[in-house]
Structures are given as C-alpha cells and as structure tokens.
C-alpha cells in the first residue's frame, strides 16, 4: 500500500513530538519529526507530506500567549507554503499548543476560505491554573471533520493552562451553524458539560474542545489523542480489566480511540474520502 507521510514539528519548546510520531505510526503513517528550522531553512519540504501536525508543548515558553510566537514564526517564514499545502487538499491537525497555534495563524476557523484571520482564541482557563485531567468528549454527529468519523464519544487527557475557547457570540453561532464544532466537553454520560467544572475543565464557551475548518481537513483540539496510544493510558484501565476478567470478557486491546482519530486520517488520504 502507498505510504502516507506525516510531518510532526519539533523544537523551540514543543514536547509531544515523540509520542505523536509514535501514535501516527501505530495508525499507519510514515511519521517524521522535523525541526521547525529544517522547514524554515528548506532542508525539508512540506510538499513531501500529506499531513502536517502542530503538536503539544510550550512553544517559545508560551510566554506571550499559547502558540502566539510559533504562529508568528510560521506566518513570517512559511505562510504561503502552508496555504499551498492546504490548497493541495492535505490535512493539518493541531493538538493543544498546536491548536493554539492554528487559531493564532488563522488556519482555524478558516471562514470563507480566509486562512489568515484570527477570529477565535484559546485563553486562560477559568479555574486559573494549568490542569491535567481526563475529560469526556462528545463528537457532534453532524460534524464533517474527517478525523472523528464514526466516533460518537471518547475520553482523552487535557493538559493546559490556556484552553478556554473564546469568540464573540456571532462567531460561536456561526461555528455551530456551519457545523465546524467537532468536539464538546461532556458529562460521563455524553450530555454537554454545560460549562460545569471539571467536566468542562477551562470554561470554554459552548463546551467547545475542538473545531475544524469548512473542509473538515484542518482540525484543532485541546485534548491529547497521542497520549491515549495504549490501553493502559486510560485512568480506569485496571478497573476495566478486572471487570472484564469477572465477565470472562477479553480486555480490549489496541487500537485506542486516540489512534483511531489518526487511522481515519490515513484512510482519508489513501481513498480521498472516508467510508
């Protein structure tokens, strides 16, 4: 089968690149960790890849807002190349710090195919602190995001201090109406968290945890799918395992739903669509 190549950015304080590349490989990608400078100086070419990953971390220490300086660097040095990459029908995913970077670049929400305008923001958690916890996420059924295809609900860890999704009311309205909202923080039973802490861990408006662009090919989310790369990453795994043992049921094994998000991407790139 033809290989599907993904580029995972590294350097300048990014720190999830190893496990992200690992998770992508599990999903079937030929994943490469590429230093931001290698891309800027042209020793690596974006056009040799089908997916670009803005991963988690603290790019430039997050000193002037999460993802802000990374976005500036990218825009100044690679702006056009990234736009070409999008026009060529490729995929982009931004996770946590990567999501913050995408919204600061303007790649999201990408209203009216304008991939340069900042119209939404990820700002300081209402709880006033960095928070590491697992959350339940509800996938909006109408969403045409290619990554979440066939998934109804999932659990993933959040690990951020600036994850509150914020925009003015008309913008939020439009995201909802245009079905660009992909993931919402939810109660364990799948109902919307309705802003309730800690289910909605940061005070995001409309419980928004992830959005995509109008094409569904650019996806940003605060939670970390790559951190659920093995079934023992799940906080309840010892309970689930014991439960299954009693029911003589086999304990679920890989791939996890975290990997499934990336498998969808592989399938989309291979078939140009998703079944």
């Amino acid at each position: 089968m033809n290989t599907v190549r993904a580029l995972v950015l590294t350097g300048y304080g990014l720190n999830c690149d190893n496990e992200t590349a690992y998770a992508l490989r599990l999903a079937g990608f030929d994943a490469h960790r590429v230093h931001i400078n290698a891309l800027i100086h042209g020793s690596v070419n974006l056009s040799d890849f089908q997916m670009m990953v803005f991963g988690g971390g603290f790019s430039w220490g997050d000193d002037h807002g999460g993802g802000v300086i990374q976005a500036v660097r990218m825009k100044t040095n690679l702006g056009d190349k990234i736009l070409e990459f999008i026009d060529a029908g490729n995929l982009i995913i931004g996770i946590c710090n990567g999501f913050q970077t995408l919204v600061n670049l303007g790649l999201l929400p990408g209203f009216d195919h304008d991939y340069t305008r900042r119209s939404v923001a990820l700002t300081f958690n209402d709880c006033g602190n960095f928070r590491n916890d697992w959350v339940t996420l509800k996938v909006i059924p109408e969403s045409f995001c290619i990554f979440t295809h066939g998934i109804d609900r999932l659990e993933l860890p959040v690990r951020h201090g600036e994850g509150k999704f914020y925009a003015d009311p008309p913008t939020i309205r439009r995201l909802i109406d245009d079905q660009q909202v992909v993931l919402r923080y939810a109660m364990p039973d799948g109902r919307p968290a309705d802003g309730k802490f800690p289910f909605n861990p940061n005070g995001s408006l409309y419980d928004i945890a992830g959005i995509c662009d109008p094409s569904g090919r650019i996806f940003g989310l605060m939670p970390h799918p790559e951190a659920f790369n093995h079934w023992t990453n799940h906080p309840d795994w010892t309970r689930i395992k014991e439960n299954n043992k009693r029911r003589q049921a086999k304990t679920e094994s890989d791939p996890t739903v975290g990997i499934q998000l990336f498998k969808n991407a592989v399938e989309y790139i291979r078939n140009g669509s998703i079944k």
Partner: protein
Amino acid sequence: MAYRLEIALKSELFDAEGNGIRQKAKNYFGIDLVSVRCIYTVTIDADLSEDQLRTIQTEIFTNPVTQVSSFDPLDLEFDWTIWVGYRPGVRDNPGSTAVEAVEDILGITFGPGQAIYTSKRYCLKGNGLTEEDMDKIAAELLANDIIQQWKIFPADKWNPAQGTGIIIPKVILDHMPTVSTISVDSDSGLKKISDERGLALNPADIPFIRSYFLDAEVKASRASVDLSDPTDIELEYISQARSDHCNHNTFRGLFRYLDLETGETEVVDNLFKTCIETPTLTLKDKNPWVVSVLWDNAGVGRFDSNHYYVITGETHNSPSNMEAYGGAITGIVGVYRDPLGTGKGSKLVMGSYGYCVGPRDYNGALKPRLHPRRLLDGVIEGVRDGGNKSGIPTTFGQVLFHPGYMGKCLVFVTALGIMPAFIGEEPSETKKTSPGELIIMCGGRVGKDGIHGVTASSETFSEHTPAGHVQIGDPYTQKKMHDFLLEARDQGLIKFITDNGGGGLSSSVGESARFSNGCEVQLEKVPLKYQGLDQWEIWVSESQERMTVAVDPAHLERFMELYTGKLHITYNGRTCAYIDMDFLTSGFPQWEFDAQWQTPERRGLYEPVLKEPRDYETLLKNLLSRPNICSKEWIVRQYDHEVQGSSVIKPLVGADRDVNSDAVVIRPVIDSKKGLVFSQALLPAYSAIDAYHMTSCTIDEAVRRLLAVGASFDHIGGVDNFCWPSIQFHPQDNPDGKFKAAQLVRSCRALRDICLAYAIPLLSGKDSMYVDGHLTGPYGETHKVSALETLQFSATSVIDDVAKCVTMDGKMPGDLVYILGITRNELGGSEYYEHLGYVGRNVPHVFPEEFTDLYRALGHAIDKEQVASVHGIYRGGLGVHLAMVAMGGNLGITVDLGLVPSDPLDRNDIILFSESAGRFIVTIDTENRKIFEEIFKGLPCACIGSVTHESEFIIKGIHGMPLINIPVQELKDAWKKPFGDLI
C-alpha cells in the same frame, strides 16, 4: 528610545489571574477586594519605527479576539494600582522570547544593550482600601523584594498620561574586570578574607591551603606563569570544591560515637564509605543490572537489554526558602540536567517533588521570611512551570507540614532519564575527557546570578544570607539545549558531558579536567549576559541552563601541551589561575564530629497513659482531615503527569480518579510493554524517637509502595536524600549537636542494614545539612528553628508487563479483604499520637528477614493475577488506609478487627492506628481464594472482611462490638475538606 506597551484582557473576559489574587487577599489577609484586573507590560528598549511598533503590537503582543493594548497607559478603573517588575539582572524569560519574536518578524537584530523587559500592573478595586493593605498585597502576595520591585499608586495620584513611567531594569556595571591576589601570610588573615568574601572556608582547611601556596616548588611553577599569591579566582575555586555541598565533608567526616546508655563507643571513619559506598558496591557485584553508581551525576540501572535508566535526587532548600518560585523552578530544571549529564547523556522521562514546609495555616508569633502558605504556593508553581515547560511528566510527589520546617523549608526534586545501552559501538554509561579535547560550554549565558549559591546552602539561613544566589530557571532554553545535546550524542560527538550546577564552571570544568588531568580555560570566551563581571565571577557564577561538554578538536596536536596536571585559567592570554589538579584530593583535613546517643528512655520518652476512645467515627474523620493525610489533589492536577504518552499508573487512581496511588508506573520505552516503577517515602516524625527506625521505616515504605503496584522485588534501586539540622556541637549555638550527630550515624547504619537486607543499591544520593533557621519572635528576639532529621527515600524497579500492574482501589462488591503482615503495638510517633498531642516511644520497627518472604509471595500473587487491589498500610495505620481502599473504589467495606493478624493486642485503637511496617491491604475475587491462600501459606495473612455493595464503611471491634458504621462518602468529604476548594 524606549516604549511601553500595556496589554489587558477585554473587559468582557473573566480575569482568572486577577480573581485568584482577589481570593488570596481575602483568605490570607482578610482584605476585601471587589475586583482585580491584570495588565501585562512590555517595555521595549530599542529604536523602532512607528510601523515596526504597530506590527509587533498587533502581530505578537495583542490577540485581537481577547485583548486590548496601547502604548499609552490603558484606562482601566481602579482605586489602587500596583506595578511589579523585576530587579536589574533577574532572569526575565518572557522578555527574552519577546526579543526572539520581534527580531524574527521585523528581520532585525537587537544590538548590545537593547532588550525587552516584561512587568505587570494590577488594577484593584475595593471599599476603604488603605496604603497598608496595598503594601501587604504587594510585598506578601504579588512580589518578592529579592527579585522584584514595585510601585503603588492611589487613583488620585495617578497621571493617566504618564502611567507608571518607563522603567528599564537594565544591568549597568561600569567596572573593568580585575583579578586580585590575596595574601596568605597568616591563618587569621585568610580567615578574615574568607568571611569578608563569603568563601565559607573551613577553619581547618586554611593552614592547608596556605601551606600549598607557600610551598617552594608550587611558588616556582606559579612564577613561570607570573603568579605569586593566590588569586581571588583560585580561592573561589577551592572554596566551591571544598564546600560541604560539593565535597560532602560531613558524610566523609570522622564520627566519635558514644552510646550514653551502654557506654559503647565507636569511631566511624567516613559515613559515606562505610554505609553507602561499600554496601552499594557489594550489591553491584552481585546484581548485573546495576550499571553505574557513585561517581557520575546520576546512577544508572539496566531497564532492558537495550536501555538503561538513570536517576538522581536533589534538594533546593536555601534558595526556595528565600524566593519560593525561583528557587523551586531552578531546582527542578537544575536536577533535570543531571541525567542529561550522566554517561554520554540521557533523555528525561520523569520527575517528582517533595515539599516540607511549616503549617499552611500558621498564625503564631514567629516571622519566617515567607509565610508557609505563600512559600508552598511558590514552590508548587515553580516546579509546575519547570516540569511542564520541560515536557517531562511530574508523576509523583509528597507534601509534609511541620513547624520544624519554618526555619528552612525542604524542596526535593528527583529526575529519571533513559538512554540507549550503546552509542554506536561505545557503552553509553562511560565517559572521560582526554588531553587534546575541547571544553565547550553550551546553553544559557553567564551573569552575576547564583554567585555563592553552593556556599550559602552550606550555611545556616539568617537575615545575612546573600540573596544574590536566588535566580529563576528557564525551562524553555534548557528544553532547546536538551533536544540539541541528544542529537549531538546520537551523532557520537560527545566524549564527556556534565552540568553546570552548584559552583558553575568551577566545579563542572574542575570535574571534567580530573580525567584528562589538566585543562586550559579561556575565560574571555564565555558568553556573558552583560559586561563587567570579574573573572572569578564568570568562573563561579551559577547561571542556569548550561552544560559542559568535551568534544574532539579539529586539530588535536595543537592542544597536546595541555597535559600539564594543572587547572590553567587565562583571560585574554593572561594567567589568572594555575593549580595542581590533585590539590583538592591531596589530603585536606577530615571534618570531625562528636556524636552522643541517648536512648528514648534516657530522654524521658514514654507511652502516653491513654484509655480507648469511644467515638471512632469522628476520630477517623478527623485523622483523614489532618494536613499530612488529607487530599492534595489540587497540587497533583497542576502537574502534567502524562506528557510523553507513557503513563500507566497515574498519581491519582480509583473510580473517581482522586485517591493517591501507592506508586507510579511509566513506559519509558514507548513501544515496549516493560514498565519503570517509582515511589518515594518521607517519615520524619519517627526521628523524634530514633532516626534509625525513621530510616528503616522510610525505606520499607518506599519498597512496599513499589511492590503494591506489581514491581519486581529483585530489581530495586534507591536514592537517599538526607536533610539534617547542623550536627557540629557548639555550647551556645548548637547545644544538642552531639545528639543530632548520633542520629545521623544511626540513620546511616539503618540505611546500610536495610539496603543490604533488601538488596537495594544506592544508585544516587545527596545530603543537605544545616536545615536550621533563625526566626524573629514577637519581641525582636530570634529563635533557632531546626527541622526534624529527615530522609527522603526514592525507589525504582521494573515490571516486565505493565498489563499486570495493580491499583489500590477496591474493585468489586463481594471481593474479600485480606491483611498481609503483623500489626504490633507500635503507635510511637504515629499520626494518631500526634493528633492527640503525644510522641510516645514504641516506634515501628522493620524486620527484613520476616518481611522478605511476604513481599516475594505478594509479587507472586500479582504476577499470577490473583489480586484485584493492593495497598500498603502507611501513615495513619490500618483505619486510614482501609478508608483509602474504600474511597478509591467508592465501595463499602466491612471488616472485623478481631481477625487482623497481630501480636496479642486487646485494644482497637492500637490495631486501627499502629503504623507497623511490612503490611498490606489486599482485595481479591472470591474465586481466587484457594490459590491466593495457598501462595501465602505459613505467612501472616488473614481475610478480615469483604468489599460491599452498600456504601457503608463498617468496622467491627475485637470483642465483636460495632466500632464504625459510616458512609464512605462522608469519609471522603472529611478527607477532601481541608484543601478541597483549592485548584
């Protein structure tokens, strides 16, 4: 020209930081603020055009969706406004990333002296706020005068056009670097200079140092490089290398131990050799998994056939005690350089923390520099930013409150790394420098910061301690260096690597050069933050985020003349230091201590006269609410414990993911099913009775924590971190010094005994003495406050298949509850006694030969997957830890104390709250009963009840009477109450 940009959240956005300040002002000082809004200020000290300023304002510093900004003061409402900025020379991380961004977007380069500085302005509203209120909020909440300056403006004195004015905290040292020589014609003269310069030279060392510089041969060879008397840089080098922190003079000292009870005397020559080095080397010979110990920056153990794991633990007490945030972040970022500088370098995979501070709600008369509550907030945040921004999971931690830590707090930081067994053909754990190699310093720049940090931490804290050594770590810079060095390692470029920590270049280059037996250092090549540093300052500065590396030079022969046996430092070609490499190892006088042991009996300790309580329900709830027992989830959740995607057993487990796990497990090699297990223990309360048993119980607890999650008993490595009050006797200043010295000797003996019994090599370890402080009292008098003798023990092991790991939470209704191990009458130093205001005398003992079989059996049961949950019984005893198992599963538990394996005991409180070592609570599926009991045949193991559907926690007393019957949720509420509303 300088410009000041003020940035704030749009008024419709909730200001979380401001709200946090509002709450703290209320909770800490009872000051009612209506609102607090924060303004971020960026001061640009560079010539930029209008357009350039607009560009960076809109593209970098202002988010159009959430923020407003202006080069004039922002017009936010306030009754008072407080501006807080750094003092000159203090590390301003956002300032330097701002420069990076501005240079990139404008395509310019900042010239020398041009810079960007960040600061904050807080807009406070409230009724009847006074200037005193503002001073308090500024000095005790918003800023620390050691690193920060502030200005307070009332609304009516505010000039809306000028605002705060433009403040530029630029370092200007109008100073020509000079090397000065120091006369050594008399001991008293040198002692005087040592005191003046804060060299902290040991009086006993002074004659020896003089004799070296007065030696005819030495004089002749020094003359050949135009040196006579020692230079300041040479004495600084000696001072750093001889400091207790670097040289461990206390542990290598000579102890005259006298047991006043038996009259037994013993001379212990070098605690390090006899109790740490010798046992560890013996164990290393027997255990091939022990790869490298006792010489490098960290210890090395085998993880699997292709990988080694690396571990070390440090403390950063003195700096944290002065500036909690800066001290703690510098500590965690600093300890992360140790594995990076071990062997040819290892990747960081995990970190942990331990904080010992005064009571969070202290309201007594003593005045510590920082209130324990504020100090704790600061260290929590420092380790949070240091760990999270390094991309290293902080997976484990402990917090302990005790008034003894008000003199000096303890901040433990531990780091684990992983490295391939081989770099190309070469073993990764070995390294050496050879003549001809180049010494390279990489990472951050050098400034005045951190000068005399090492010597300061080798002294008792007082108001005279120089604040100069307090600084702020920069995880961002270090993360870049970390990624770069691992690249260089994998390309085989690194011959030798070590970190620049305490002592700066002085110790890192000093160490490196011992292998090559000599070095030449060109000091003018060191990159500086600003000009004007003296040579000796460049040499000893502890500016962070630096490593020292040795690499092959392009032209080897050019450097061959280096092989001189000298440490040779030049500055612009002129020699400023020239010392024999072997000088420091050439028989400096050994430190000596008198140690006098008085048994607890002799010290008048006895068991309290105490009759059984009646209300066990309230008692249990109150114990669960005690600061050292209760939930501290708010700290755990601030730490990223899942980055790197390797998390298997997390710090918090159970149905609600809110109860503390016994230990943590990660997959450091992400595509392998093998796990690395880690735990720590801290039991200083037992030192009030006998530091021998404090030590043995601490080690036993750390070991049981590992076993509880399924770790192998045959692969345990240890790290000892001693934190001790001064042990040098002085009739006025340290009258009980001889006793504290005896406690140290006993502690080391226990370390030796238990580690040998459990076959635990000490992969790494550190000691931090002088955990004392002098606090001012209500009448201006000062009190010496000393910490309990404290040992933090860290333990690691492996598990072949992480899928076999177990957690502590009760899993299924109907499961049987077993107790492993014997409960004894050992309430001495217990949480229960402490709660009732007693110490007691029956401190718990460890019986390794008895425990070992039980531990192996448990390992067998877990490996055969016969258990549903395992939890050790630790501080608080059986009652508290049965509650933990129930709270973990959100399930009821019904047990009968009469069935608990124990010495003949006729009291419920003893069985419930004794802290006897060697015990576990295990729950199992009834199906497994036969096999499980078979495994524990002939060992102390009994079924005492079961896990239940009902949500009640039910305990039947030894004579059958009901003791406790209470909803599990009520226990959990009590356990969460003290810190429950902190986030």
